[in-house]
């Protein structure tokens, strides 16, 4: 059972390394706008893998999800509040 856990952690690590390789390849091959979308999508997937499997969020209680999600929602509100700035800067160029 324990070696099963360790093998699982090792497989997640291999996925994380493979996703880093995808990001690096995307940065050097794809046009910049497409690369940026892919790179940050991959970063979100990597963070999700670490949180779910290494931080064991998949087995956690609802209170832990609540504690973790509240600041993420605040940060997302911050980003949404800055969208006009992002758009203004992008259209200015």
């Amino acid at each position: 059972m324990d070696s099963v856990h360790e093998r699982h952690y090792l497989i997640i690590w291999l996925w994380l390394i493979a996703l880093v390789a995808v990001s690096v390849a995307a940065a050097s091959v794809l046009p910049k706008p497409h690369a940026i979308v892919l790179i940050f999508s991959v970063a979100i997937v990597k963070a999700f893998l670490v949180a779910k499997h290494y931080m064991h969020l998949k087995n956690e209680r609802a209170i832990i999800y609540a504690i973790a999600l509240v600041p993420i929602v605040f940060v997302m509100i911050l980003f949404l509040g800055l969208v006009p700035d992002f758009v203004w800067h992008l259209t200015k160029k």
Partner: protein
Amino acid sequence: MTTQTAAISEMESPVGKNGTWWFLASEIPIFGGLIAAYIVMRLGSAGWSEASSHLNFTVALLNTFLLLTSSMTIVMAHAAVQRAALKRAAHFLGLTILLGLGFLGMKAFEYSTEIGHGFLPSSGIFWSFYYGMTGLHALHVLAGIIVNVVLWSQTVTGSLAQQPHRVELAGLYWHLVDIIWIFLFPLLYLA
């Protein structure tokens, strides 16, 4: 372990975990705010691509590898301590410490090279953000290493057997430090 001690341990573990998660939650707006400010400033300022081209991508890639690997070793330590395999836990905690020190050593090398080329925090807004964000992250890595050293010494002496959940709590912190780097690496070195 007496029934009373077992009951106390069961009560202490969730409290420690809730507190750790509250602490981790407080870190998210700090780095989230920095990242949001970085994006706004980057979109609004010219010449950032040129400035970021002076960063050492190879060192950053190696550091990404070290930190991702250390996340795996600390979760292995957690798995080991759960089955009371303290020697194996000490082995994985030691590896985590070495990987963390490797990360800081590479970061110090990167900083010294950049400073040697004249790129100081005062050299421009990109460099202010770069040193600010990576420096704050490096301080978090250092704090994690100190906690891991304490836990490692407790595994060696055997005293961790009474508080095995501490490895899980230290691991949660270490994984958050890893997640922060997962976003800093593409933001500074790839985008």
